[in-house]
C-alpha cells in the first residue's frame, strides 16, 4: 500500500489555515484548496471579533502571511475539488484550478487595471452593497493581493467585443486572457473539510421585510457597513437615503424556528453590533428584541453586561417567531408580542436581523463528493463513537469549523487543532505500519 505523505485541506478560513500551519513541515506537505480568489474566510469580513473586540484583520493577517510564506503549504486559491477516491492513507483527489487570467507571480496588486475596466457588477463579497469591475479583488487588503477576471462578464472573454484595456494598463504583463483552467491530480494521506457555513437566507421570511424594505439589514451587510475597508469606509448610513439612523432595532433568532436550533453566536454578534453602533453614533438608541439570551462560557457574560448597561434596551418577546417588520412613511415599525403576550410596536429607522447559521450551499455537494454523512441539519456529522473525534463517517476524512455546525472562533480553532492532531496521529501510525520499530518499545530520543 503506497503511503502518501501529504494532506489536503479544503477551505482556507481560520480552521483550514490553522490546521494547515500545524500539519505543514519538512516531512509533510499540505495542499490548501480555497474556492474564493483570496484566503481568510468569514472572519476577515468582520471589522472586530467578539469577545476581545480585536481587529479581525490584525488577528488573522499574521496567520494568512504564515500560510502564504510557508514553503510546505501549497495554497490553491480560486480552485475546487472535483473528485475524491481511495481510502485512509491513500486518497487520490482531482482539483480544478480555475483560470484567474492574472499571474500570481508577476502581479503586484497595484490596481491600475481596475480603473480602466468598463464592466461593473455587484460585489457579493461586500454583500452587493458596492460594485466591482470584471477584473477585481474582493476587498482592499486581500491576500493574495492579485485580482481575478470574471470570465462570464468580461467583454473579451464572453466574446462581446475585442476589449484589451486591462492588458494594456498593466505595466508588469501580469494579465493573460488566454489563461485556462488546470486540473491537478493529488495523492494525499488524509483530508480536512473546513469550508465554513452561511447565514440564513432572510428573504425566506417575508414577515421581517428583508429585501422589500431597504432599512432592513442582514448581519453580514451590517458587518460590511461597519468595516473600515468596506463599502462605506465604516460609516453607518442607510441604504438609499444615506441618512444616519437615530433608532435601531436588532431582532434576534431570525430563522431559528425554521432551522430548528439556536445557532449559539447570534446573541453575541448582536451585542457586538450594539458596541459598533454606539462607537460610531454615540447618541443612537438601540433595542434588542430577544427571547432567550445565549451567552455561554466564561468570556461572554461580561461582554453582554458591558452592553446591557445603558447602550441598549433589552425588549423580551414571548414568541420570537411572531415578530413582524413593516414600512412606515418615516421609517420602520417592529411589532412583537411582549412578556405578557400583548403586541407592542417600536418605531425605528433601521432593523438588523440576527440570522441563524446554516450549512453553506456547497456543503451538501462536498459531502456527496467526499462520501461523508450529514446530520439532520445538513452539517457534516462527527463524533460518531461519542468521543471528541473530528473524523467524519469516512475514515481518513476529518472536518473542522462551522461546516460541522454553528460555533464561535474559539471552538473553530479547537476543532482545527483536534483534527490536525488526529491527522498527524493517523499519518504517524500509518508510517508505523510500514516501518514498525523492531523492539516495539516507544522510541525515546
Amino acid at each position, binding site marked *: 500500500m503506497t503511503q502518501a505523505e501529504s494532506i489536503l485541506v479544503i477551505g482556507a478560513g*481560520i480552521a483550514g489555515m490553522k490546521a494547515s500551519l*500545524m500539519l505543514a*513541515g519538512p*516531512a509533510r506537505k499540505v495542499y490548501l484548496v480555497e474556492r474564493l480568489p483570496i484566503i481568510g474566510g468569514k472572519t476577515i469580513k468582520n471589522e472586530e471579533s467578539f469577545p*476581545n473586540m*480585536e481587529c479581525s484583520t490584525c*488577528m488573522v493577517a*499574521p496567520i494568512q*502571511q504564515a500560510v502564504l*510564506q510557508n514553503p510546505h503549504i501549497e495554497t490553491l486559491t480560486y480552485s475546487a475539488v472535483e473528485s475524491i477516491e481511495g481510502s485512509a492513507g491513500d486518497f487520490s483527489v482531482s482539483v480544478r484550478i480555475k483560470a484567474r487570467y492574472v499571474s500570481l*507571480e508577476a502581479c*503586484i496588486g497595484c490596481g491600475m487595471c481596475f480603473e480602466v475596466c468598463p464592466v461593473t457588477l455587484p460585489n457579493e463579497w461586500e454583500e452587493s452593497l458596492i460594485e466591482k469591475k470584471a477584473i477585481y479583488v474582493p476587498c482592499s487588503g486581500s491576500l493574495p493581493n492579485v485580482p481575478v477576471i470574471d470570465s462570464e462578464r468580461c467583454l473579451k472573454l464572453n466574446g462581446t467585443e475585442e476589449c484589451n484595456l486591462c492588458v494594456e494598463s498593466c505595466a*508588469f504583463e501580469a494579465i493573460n486572457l488566454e489563461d485556462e483552467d488546470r486540473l491537478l491530480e493529488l495523492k494525499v494521506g488524509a483530508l480536512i473539510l473546513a469550508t465554513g457555513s452561511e447565514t440564513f437566507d432572510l428573504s425566506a421570511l417575508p414577515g421581517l421585510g428583508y429585501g422589500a424594505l431597504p432599512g432592513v439589514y442582514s448581519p453580514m451587510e451590517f458587518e460590511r457597513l461597519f468595516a473600515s475597508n468596506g463599502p462605506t469606509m465604516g460609516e453607518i448610513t442607510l441604504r438609499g437615503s444615506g441618512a444616519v439612523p437615530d433608532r435601531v432595532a436588532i431582532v434576534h433568532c431570525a430563522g431559528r424556528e425554521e432551522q*430548528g*436550533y*439556536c445557532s*449559539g453566536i447570534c446573541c453575541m454578534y448582536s451585542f457586538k453590533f450594539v458596541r459598533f453602533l454606539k462607537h460610531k453614533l454615540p447618541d443612537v438608541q438601540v433595542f434588542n428584541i430577544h427571547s*432567550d439570551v*445565549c*451567552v*455561554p*462560557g*466564561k*468570556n*461572554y*457574560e*461580561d461582554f453582554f453586561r458591558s452592553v446591557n448597561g445603558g447602550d441598549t434596551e433589552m425588549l*423580551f418577546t414571548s414568541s420570537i417567531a411572531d415578530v413582524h417588520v413593516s414600512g412606515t412613511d418615516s421609517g420602520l415599525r417592529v411589532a412583537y408580542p411582549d*412578556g*405578557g*403576550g400583548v403586541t407592542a410596536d417600536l418605531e425605528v429607522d433601521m432593523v438588523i436581523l440576527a440570522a441563524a447559521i446554516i450549512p453553506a450551499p456547497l456543503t451538501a455537494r462536498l459531502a456527496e463528493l467526499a462520501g461523508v454523512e450529514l446530520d439532520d*441539519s445538513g*452539517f457534516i456529522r462527527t*463524533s460518531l463513537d461519542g*468521543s*471528541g*473525534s*473530528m473524523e467524519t463517517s469516512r475514515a481518513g476524512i476529518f472536518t473542522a469549523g462551522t461546516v460541522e*455546525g*454553528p460555533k464561535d*472562533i*474559539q471552538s473553530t*480553532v*479547537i*476543532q482545527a*487543532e*483536534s483534527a490536525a*492532531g*488526529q491527522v*498527524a*496521529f493517523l499519518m*504517524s*501510525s500509518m508510517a*508505523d505500519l510500514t516501518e514498525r*520499530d523492531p523492539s*516495539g518499545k*516507544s*522510541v*525515546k*530520543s
Partner: protein
Amino acid sequence: MSETGTGKTEMTARVGVYLCECGPNIAGKIDLDKVMADILSESDRYRNVELVIRRYGFLCSGPGKQYLEDEIKENGLTHLVVAACSPRDHDSTFMGVCARTDLNPYLYRIVNIREQCSWVITDPEEATERAATYIRGSISRVLRQSSLFEKPLEINPDAVVIGGGAAGMEAALALSSDLRRVFLVEKSASLGGGCGITMPQEKAVIEDPNVDIYLETQMSSVIGFLGNFEIGLKSADGKDEEITAGAIILAIGSDYSDPQESGRISFSESDEVHILAEAERTLEAAGDLKLRDGTMPETIAVVHCVGREEQGYCSGVCCSSSLKLAAAIRRLSPETAVTSVYRDLCLPGADGENVLRMARESGVELIRTKGTSLSGMELDLEKMDGTSEKRSFDMIIPAAAIVPAADTVSLAEMLRIPLDEHGFFKEAHRMTDPAGTTTEGVFIAGTAHGPMSVMSSMRFARACAGQVLTRLVPGERIVPEVKVTEILEAYCTGCGNCLDVCVYGAIYADTDRGISVVNEAVCRGCGNCFASCPSGALRTRHFTNEQIFREVDEALR
C-alpha cells in the same frame, strides 16, 4: 583585513544596502537615486566600512531573491541592509536568502520605507529624506549586530496529563502510541472525574499499554520547557517520583459553586435540596430519586442559573443537563410533577433543541422568571409579566455554576501561568490559541479552561493533543528562540530584580556564584528583565542598547 600601523589587523566591514522599488509603491514616491547619493556622501562617518549600495525592482520576487544572493556572494558582504516593506511581510524571506549564503541571517536588517515612509508621507522630498535617515540608522545598527546561531534541542515526546476526568482520559488516548508515553496523574482514587457518569474511555485508558496511570498522586514540582520538563510527583502515601516529559496538559476539571453563596438562596441541612450533579449521580446509581424518608417526591423543581449573578458568567451546560434530568425523572416516575424554573434557556446547536423537545414531550413544566429566590422548600417566582408567585415543592434541585477547581492557584504558581479574572487558567489567546498558555508546552483541557460541556471538554483535550502531536514529533528537534537575553556574570550581583519580572520563569538564582542565570531554552526574549536591571548586567541579543541607541542617534542627527 587592513594592516594598521601598530601591526594590528582590523576587520573592514562591507555593508550591502539594497533599496527595493516595489513598483510604484516605493519608487513612485521616494527618489531612490537621491537617497543612494545622500548615504554615499556620508560614508566616511563609519570607520573601516565599505558601502555597496544598489536599487532593484522587486527584491521579494524569485529573480529578486536570486539577485540578492549573488550580490552577497560576489561582494563578500559582511552585513546586509534591505530597504523595502514591513518586516511582517518579508523579514523571513530575506533571512532565508542570507541562510543560503555564508552571511549569518542576524547580520541583516530590513528597513520599512513603504508602510512607514512612502505610503504615509505625502510630500516626496520629506519621504525621501526620511527614507535616507531610516537607512542610515539601520546601517549604524547592523554594524553593531553580531551573528546568532540556532541551537536545535533534542525533545522528549512523552506527555503528562494532570487529571483523570473526561478531558484527561480523552487526551491520554489521543496521544499515547508506541512512540509516545503518557503519564496520567489523578488526585483521587479513581478515574472518571467530576461528571459523575462512567465514561466509555475509562476501560480503554486502563488497558492502553502506553499510558501509565498514577492514582492518588499530585504534581509537586516542575521545571523546564517545551520538550524538556522535569516533573516531581507526590503520592498520597508520601512516595516521591521524578518523571521527564515534553508537554503538560492540565485537565483538573472544576468544582460547583455553593448555591447558598447567592443571597437569594437559603436552605437548611434537613431540607430536601440536592445540587444537580449530586442528583445526576444518585439517579444514575439508584435509578430513581427518593426523599430521605425513602418515599417518592410528588413535586420536584429544578432551578437554573443559580450562581450566575455571583460568578459573572453563564456556565452554558446546566440548562441541557437540567432538562435531561427533568425528562429522565418524568420517564422513570410519570406521577412526579417536575418543574424547570429558568431565566434564559441556553441550548445552542441541534442537540440543545432535542433536549428541549424531549423535556416538553415528557411533560416538564417550564417557567421563565426574571428572578427566583428560595427559602427552605418554597420558591418565590418573579414572572416575565411582572406578577410573582410562591410555590413549595417536595424536592428542589438547584443547578449551581461551574467554578475553578480548588488547586488551580497552586498549579498556576508552580507552572508560572496567570489566572483569568474568574480564576480559571488564562489561555494564551481567547480566539486564536485557546488551548495554549503563556508557558510554552503547558496546555489546558476541559473545565479547567472554563465552564463547558463534556463534548467540548473532549474536543479541548484533542486540541491539546493536536498541539503536542504536531510540535513534539519523535526524532525531530525543536529550535528555541535565538534572540534571548544573556546575563553577564562579571557584572551581575544576584539581586533578583530580573527574577521577579520574568513572566516565563526563565531566570533562576545561582546562590553559589551569587548571580542570576537565564535558561536560554525557556527565554522568549521579551526584554522585561533587561529593562528592570539597575546596572548594565543584562543584554538582550539582537536588541542591545548599543544597537538601538546608535540607530536613534542617526535619526536625531
